[in-house]
């Protein structure tokens, strides 16, 4: 269906998946991204997922909700999700909109995200239960 460059890349890094969004996604692309990611978590038996949204132009209600859904589904599949790269103006607009990523952990950038996962995943899954989705 789409022949252009990849909108999203999902790369494996050890027991983690690093998913980078490369451009603005519309709703159906967002949903496909969600499906692909959840599928790959199972395939690669990943323990942690980093979603890099630095290239997203906006995170509106649908985008935020999808990220929360991904996080919750990943949690049910035994993986911890952390979102990185939310731009300052996107953060501002999200707050003004009344939107948040809920209890989904976030980190400033990829490095922080990896450090976060390292702490969580390697101290055992019990440590993750602290986060619950409201």
């Amino acid at each position: 269906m789409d022949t252009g460059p990849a909108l999203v890349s999902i790369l494996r890094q050890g027991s983690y998946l690093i998913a980078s969004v490369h451009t603005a996604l519309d709703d159906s692309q967002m949903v496909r991204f969600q499906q692909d990611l959840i599928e790959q978590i199972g395939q690669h038996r990943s323990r942690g997922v980093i979603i890099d949204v630095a290239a997203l132009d906006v995170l509106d209600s649908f985008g935020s909700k999808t990220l929360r859904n991904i996080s919750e589904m990943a949690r049910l599949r035994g993986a911890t999700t952390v979102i990185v790269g939310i731009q300052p103006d996107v953060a501002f607009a999200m707050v003004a909109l009344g939107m948040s990523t809920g209890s989904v952990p976030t980190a400033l950038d990829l490095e922080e995200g990896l450090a976060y996962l390292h702490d969580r995943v390697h101290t055992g899954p019990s440590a993750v239960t602290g986060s619950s989705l409201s």
Partner: protein
Amino acid sequence: MSAGQPADALSESGSQSDVAALVPVIRRFVHSRVSNEAVADDIVQETLVRMLAAAGRVEPGMVEPYAIITARNLIASMWKEQERHRRNQHRIVDLRSPESPDEGLLQQEDKGAVAEALERLSERDRRTLMAHEVAGQDTQSLAGELGVTAGAVAAQLNRSRARLRVEYLLALEPGTALTDRCRPVLFALSGGDRRRQREVDAARHLLECDLCEKLSQPLLERGQRSDGEVRIRIRADADIVLARQTAREVAARLEFSRTDLTVIATAVSEIARNVVRFTDGGEVVVELLEEPRRGVRIVARDTGPGIADVEAALVDGYSTYHGLGLGLPGARRLMDEFAVVSEMGRGTTVTMTKWRQEG
């Protein structure tokens, strides 16, 4: 060669045999240079003819070199000819399309449409227009005749032209049913009168009426479209992204801050999504404002079912699908001004404005 008499005939037959002896030499020479058999044979023949003609003039020992030079010249001039032909070939092609058989008919139809359109104008409008356009009478003298100012005549002429354009387009679409709203909307569009267009709610009518939508294309094209206004058709998911990116681009011309641009894009994303989710189509219009302050106004119109309870829809968490119910209230929080007008069965119009923070 008047000397074709018996005395010469002898010597000529002698030279003829000389020439005949040349044939293999000439053939070899020509065939080694020209690959096409038929062409080569032609050149050999031509060379022989020339040799026969020149036989009397050529010194006995020089016949063979003379023949070879002749053949070479013939080949060279053939190549030159071919090259010239190749270079000029494009000139032969006539790129004008031939007059198609329906052209006359179309012209006749066109004439009929113009006549019919003129017919629909009021007597006074028609007379003034004809006097100005056909007879070349200027507005000044027309004003004198009609007892009004030249400016009024010019305005009237403008209105007549606008009407004429509409009537002409309508005359080309015979047998279509017009609603009582079509003409006023088309007149307003044709005249390029923004205030009048708003009065008759032209934008909404174009969403609802396919005929006017179609006719409005040529009418709007000729008018000077202000580049401070961009219209995006909303039908599918991808249009949401297009709408918010367009809004961002247009607003960026006013040097909004990056944050404000993202805020505007987010609000557009929310309301455009409502159009995609709940209706079968609509549009988002992004417009730059200079008065009373600089800002950007975004109008989203759809032809959906309408919102039964606008007040309730503006409260957080009101959602009719599995959303978060943040669409309208969220967009309202993001923008400076926000208004929703909804009519059941006809559609919804969301108008929102973001002012530029000065200084």
